[in-house]
């Protein structure tokens, strides 16, 4: 059940260039699934900011978010501290339907701020006995986060746009190189990357997670629609019917 809550920040720290990890206390934490997001209100901002759930600690009843400073809102969010209160709508959106899938091996493909939700997904898959291979792309070495955490879950490959770490180039270059075997791929990142990955992995089963500017974040305003491949005159709402979609379900623009 979706609600609005005022939640306490347990910890707030920088983990890479302009990138922050925030742990938030919430009795709803155990209900949050990989792929879902929270919608955060910020003082002096009319619209909330959607941020993915990057992890859950059911014992401690906390969830983790990871964000990068992009504009005014995320800059504001970077100034919060442990002990501060966050105004959050949660849980928002759909999740990766891994409970309904037969998976032995999964390929994780993430780019930049698309990486956080995939960490929670990869961790859950690993706990379910799935073999996980992760291919992650960042702009440069300074922006890389969670590399060791992904390595604990399985083979992890990193690409940087400027070549300052790992493979120089894109996640698609690594996929070409390592030619991984998998039953399903899961991808999240900037739309150009999602397009490239969906194209490269055409014919495979997979799920992607999309971003769009949002109004309500709960499905009432029609701000965040994406057209369907089956019939481009029909659309789905990324905030409510997504952000997770089957890779061949929607038209990426």
């Amino acid at each position: 059940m979706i609600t609005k809550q005022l939640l306490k920040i347990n910890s707030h720290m920088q983990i890479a260039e302009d990138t922050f990890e925030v742990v938030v206390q919430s009795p709803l934490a155990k209900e949050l699934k990989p792929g879902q997001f929270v919608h955060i209100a910020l003082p002096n901002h009319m619209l909330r900011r959607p941020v993915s759930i990057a992890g859950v600690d059911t014992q401690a009843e906390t969830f983790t978010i990871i964000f990068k400073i992009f504009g005014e809102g995320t800059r504001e969010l970077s100034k919060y501290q442990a002990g501060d209160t966050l105004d959050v709508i949660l849980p928002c959106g759909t999740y990766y339907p891994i409970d309904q899938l037969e998976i032995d091996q999964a390929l994780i493909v993430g780019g930049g701020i698309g990486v956080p939700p995939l960490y929670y997904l990869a961790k859950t898959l690993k706990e379910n006995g799935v073999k996980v291979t992760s291919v992650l792309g960042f702009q440069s070495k300074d922006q890389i986060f969670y590399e060791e955490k992904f390595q604990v879950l399985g083979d992890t490959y990193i690409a940087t746009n400027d070549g300052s770490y790992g493979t120089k180039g894109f996640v698609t270059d690594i996929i070409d190189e390592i030619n991984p075997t998998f039953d399903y791929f899961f991808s999240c990142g900037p739309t150009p990357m999602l397009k490239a990955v969906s194209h490269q992995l055409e014919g495979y089963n997979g799920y992607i997670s999309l971003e769009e500017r949002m109004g309500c974040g709960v499905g009432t305003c029609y701000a965040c629609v994406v057209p369907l491949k089956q019939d481009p005159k029909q659309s789905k709402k990324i905030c409510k019917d997504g952000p997770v979609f089957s890779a061949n379900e929607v038209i990426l623009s």
Partner: protein
Amino acid sequence: MNLTTRLPGLMLKNPVMPASGCFGFGKEYSQFYDLSELGAIIVKAATGEARFGNPTPRVAETSSGMLNAIGLQNPGVEKIIEEELPFLRSYDTPVIANVAGSTVEEYVKVTKALNHSKDIAALELNISCPNVKEGGVQFGTDPSLAKEVTYQVKEASDYPVYVKLSPNVSNIVEMAKEVADAGADGLSMINTLTGMQINLKQRKPIIANQTGGLSGPAIKPIAIRMIYEVRQALDIPIIGMGGIITAEDVLEFLLAGANAVAVGTANFQNPLACPEIINDLPSMLKQYGFYSVEDAIGKGHV
């Protein structure tokens, strides 16, 4: 404290209702609170056929507000009547349907279709949407077109008709007079103001449609001024809206001459905006020396 307010076809237990396009058809926000708390509900626009709307991005944040260019996306009036409106039956609050179109014929078609629904109490005639290529705001900025479409819809409708005015005009009183002459039972004002925001990095407008409608606190002074001017000239009932966030904002609209109010953009920031405002109203009205909502209507005029 008596919060009731009476308008044609609408006996409201309190003056606060969500604005069209900012509340869908109620389902999502019903997860946050009991919709029976609301004075009324204005649902998303209905057109003759399903509309896909504009390309994305469709929204942008501004100082104290937002731009939107949704483009009247909706499943079409028949589907709305069959699949969306019945959900609201279980709530003890009147529903107002929002009627949109590109031609007078389409407005009349939607109006006639809605005559067959028992789930609504009134129509809001949207002649002020700035985000569609044809119709919409054209009807709302040309006084003779506004008069014509109001007259035709009023002829066709079994329900009271509230005409939603566009603020994108130089003389709001003239528009109000024209639609009042054509038989409007009430006015709803204001819709959004046409605006634009340019992305510095991309060197192009953020919204794919380029322009969008500005809403939120940024437009409140304009809404207050326009309602005040219309109230000086006419006795017609007014549903006021534009930037309402708090109970104090509601009182300001009542003082300007609104008989009831609608809350739009604030729902996005705070899904509980409407019930919280309703909850705050009694003590706030008392604080400013009023004993009922109707007591405050129009009392801001000198």
